[in-house]
């Protein structure tokens, strides 16, 4: 071997990217024929770098992950291209060889730690088995190593955690276990499939920080898949944008954000909520109270009257409080945001306002005091309408769209019988849906379209208050933006007030005049929108705002 060849070999090995995907295409055989999922994908992850893959649902990003891991369903058809791990062609590997590679040279962190951990096996064993399989350790050695791995991910009492079952750990703890498992054998490449999507804001932030920390410590190469552009900008060096199976743009993350070239990228960036960009209606000129919540509390698993009589101290502790002593008022024509993590009580408040939940305390609406759910009458219910989170579940699958929208018209007598059909068409137009949709069934509509129908149904009653319970949470980013804008337009046209419940702080700062923050059932903060970043804010509010990924990556780069 000549010196030249040797040098070339050294250079070649040093330059070999951790992962290179070359002109790769994938299709699925379905009842409707061959459907293309990925078209001519080119993606390279240099050693030690993190590349982000951003796309909405249906873009094919998950398929990409499965292709790399070589775990495709039987109806998958690969129509060309190459996938190389450090230069080695993965498509040539037999299943046996792949089983060797997985976990040892290449591993994966999944989206939902609750479902990707075996519920009947202790956490320690689920980490140890990887070590025993790939590094040939004995059981005792593997468990010791597992403890070390867990400690590295920030678990405070790793020895204890090893003995627990998944249902005994929180979402954040479980995800740390999954991450520890992925890092355990020091692989060359780790694929992260939306690892923070299923987690709360604060927990997600912790996991993101952990990711950055581990990345710096171990210099691992990573593919980070997400639908959240803002989030991705914090953790990756390069980003590729995937749209319907095609990579429409790629580059350094700062450049792609600052100067997007593809129209889809521009649209995606534009749809990401920017808290500094106001898209809501004007604040009401003269604030007038519409509904007042006075000492509202919701006690789940409440004790019976007998228990309350004889053991009053214990009665307080039984069950748990979904909401406790909540006081605020909703003004006419305003958009009031209610934010919090899961379990904060924000949905509970929504249900109380909509008359779906028994409560303690009082609701005051224009002079009338309502002390319990039973007092709520149809007149109230007409004035207060609610739109739910999941578009699939909020429409009766056996009723046509027209019938669904017509129902409030008939129930409240909004328009006389002859005018119903015309009104349905008007309402559909208001939510930017074609008139013909009245004859369709819900399953024929997309998620975003179904949500529009739910909104049309709410506004059909001509309410004074529309409660939106996380209505954008189950939608893609670009659809989210469209639905939010639609709501604002309807608010402007009808003058209705809106209570918008969400966990997305960036979004709410674009829409709400005033914001209420809830934590463990209590109202911890309440402020006008401009005061969001002031020093007077409650520490919890400050923590939430800090945890949310900022819009422009420029900031993140400056800090880094």
């Amino acid at each position, binding site marked *: 071997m000549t010196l030249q060849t040797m040098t070339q070999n050294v250079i070649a090995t040093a330059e070999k990217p951790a992962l290179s995907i070359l002109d790769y295409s994938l299709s699925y055989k379905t009842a409707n024929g061959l459907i293309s999922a990925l078209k001519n994908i080119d993606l390279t992850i240099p050693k030690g770098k993190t590349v982000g893959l951003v796309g909405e649902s249906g873009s094919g990003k998950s398929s990409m992950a499965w292709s790399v891991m070589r775990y495709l369903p039987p109806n998958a058809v690969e129509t060309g291209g190459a996938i190389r791990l450090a230069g080695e062609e993965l498509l040539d590997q037999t299943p046996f060889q792949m089983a060797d590679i997985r976990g040892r040279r290449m591993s994966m962190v999944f989206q939902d730690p609750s479902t990707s951990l075996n519920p009947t096996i202790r956490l320690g064993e689920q980490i140890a088995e990887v070590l025993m399989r790939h590094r040939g350790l004995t059981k005792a050695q593997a468990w010791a190593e597992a403890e070390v791995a867990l400690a590295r991910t920030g678990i405070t009492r790793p020895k204890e955690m090893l003995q627990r079952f998944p249902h005994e750990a929180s979402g954040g703890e479980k995800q740390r276990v999954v991450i520890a498992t992925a890092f355990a054998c020091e692989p060359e490449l780790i694929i992260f499939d939306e690892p923070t999507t299923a987690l709360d804001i604060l927990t997600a932030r912790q996991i993101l920080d952990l990711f950055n920390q581990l990345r710096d410590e171990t210099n691992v190469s990573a593919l980070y898949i997400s639908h959240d552009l803002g989030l991705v900008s914090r953790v990756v060096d390069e980003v590729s944008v995937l749209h319907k199976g095609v990579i429409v743009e790629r580059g350094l993350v700062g450049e792609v954000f600052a100067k997007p070239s593809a129209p889809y990228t521009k649209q995606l960036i534009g749809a990401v909520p920017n808290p500094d960009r106001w898209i809501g209606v004007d604040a009401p000129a003269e604030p007038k109270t519409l509904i007042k919540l006075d000492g509202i509390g919701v006690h789940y698993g409440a004790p019976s009257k007998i228990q309350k009589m004889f053991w009053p101290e214990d009665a307080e502790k039984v069950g748990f409080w979904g909401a406790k002593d909540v006081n605020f008022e909703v003004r006419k024509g305003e958009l009031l945001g209610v934010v919090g993590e899961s379990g904060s009580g924000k949905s509970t408040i929504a249900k109380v306002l*909509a*008359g779906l939940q028994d409560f303690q305390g009082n609701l005051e609406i224009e002079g009338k005091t309502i002390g319990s759910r039973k007092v709520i009458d149809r007149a109230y*219910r007409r004035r207060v309408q609610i739109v739910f989170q999941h578009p699939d*579940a909020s429409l009766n*699958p056996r009723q046509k769209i027209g019938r669904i929208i017509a*129902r409030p018209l008939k*129930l409240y007598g909004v328009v006389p019988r002859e005018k119903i059909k015309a009104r349905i068409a008007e309402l559909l137009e208001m939510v930017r849906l074609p008139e013909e949709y009245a004859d369709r069934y819900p399953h024929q509509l997309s998620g975003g379209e179904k949500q529009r129908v739910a909104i049309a149904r709410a506004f059909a009653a001509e309410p004074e208050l529309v409660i939106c319970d996380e209505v954008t949470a189950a939608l893609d980013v670009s659809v989210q933006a469209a639905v939010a804008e639609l709501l604002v337009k309807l608010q402007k046209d009808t003058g209705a007030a809106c209570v918008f419940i969400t966990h997305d702080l960036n979004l709410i700062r674009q829409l709400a005049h005033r914001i209420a923050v809830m934590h463990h059932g209590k109202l911890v903060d309440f402020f006008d929108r401009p005061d969001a970043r002031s020093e007077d804010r409650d520490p919890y509010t400050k923590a939430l705002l800090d945890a949310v990924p900022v819009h422009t990556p420029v900031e993140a780069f400056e800090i880094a």
Partner: protein
Amino acid sequence: MRNFFSSPTAIMGTALLSIVLFAAIFGPMIAPYDPQAFDPLNRLQGPSLTHLFGTDQFGRDLLSRILTGAPSTVAFGVGATLLGVGIGSIIGVVAGVSGGWVDSTIMRILDGLLAVPDLLFTLLIVTILGGGMEHAMLAVSIAFAPGMARIARSAVLSVRTRDYVRAAVARGESGVYIVTCEVLPNALSPIVVEATIRVSFAIMIGATLGFLGLGAQPPSTEWGLMVAEARQFMFRNPWCVAIPGISIAIAALGFNLFGDALRDALDPKRSHG
């Protein structure tokens, strides 16, 4: 619904069911011989050109007996199930819709009744009421009712928590509207599927009762009874027990497969395909 016939289960089930229903409706009309006609010279013969299924111990043509027995066998299964489904569903829907102590009480009683196995329950009731087809049918329907109530209740419960039902409550709809327009149309499919499958059980239990002499009585050509009557001759001519036995199996299988295919077709996950 177009996809219904894509699975082999559906095809088989529909085919078998069609044969059985055809026999049940037209059987007596197309039977070649009088099912009660004795022909002692030709007794216990195997299948032949003159007697497609052979003859029984009295020389009666088996094919004719099968065809004339079809209506009562199938009618028994369908009738008993409809009655049981009717009673059970009402109880189950009431329990599911009411909730609270009404629901709990009904559930406890159902649990107690369900602790007694089906056939045992039926036997006890039939012994009280006396033999005969009508009593047997009543007994089977009473035995089915608790199980159906459970299914109906759980179907109602799963629908009750859906958002579109909550939306109706939030609108201030009346209870009657919610149950009839929102809950029932969506809770019906599990009930219908279970009912179809239960027809197959009813047919089998009916035949068993006939076999034990507690159901249909001679000279009925109910298939279970045919097996009982031919038992002592089964070694000499196995056809006289095999034919009615297999007919029972085909009838039960038809309903069973059809019910399974129905369940797959009505599965909401499928319809979003």
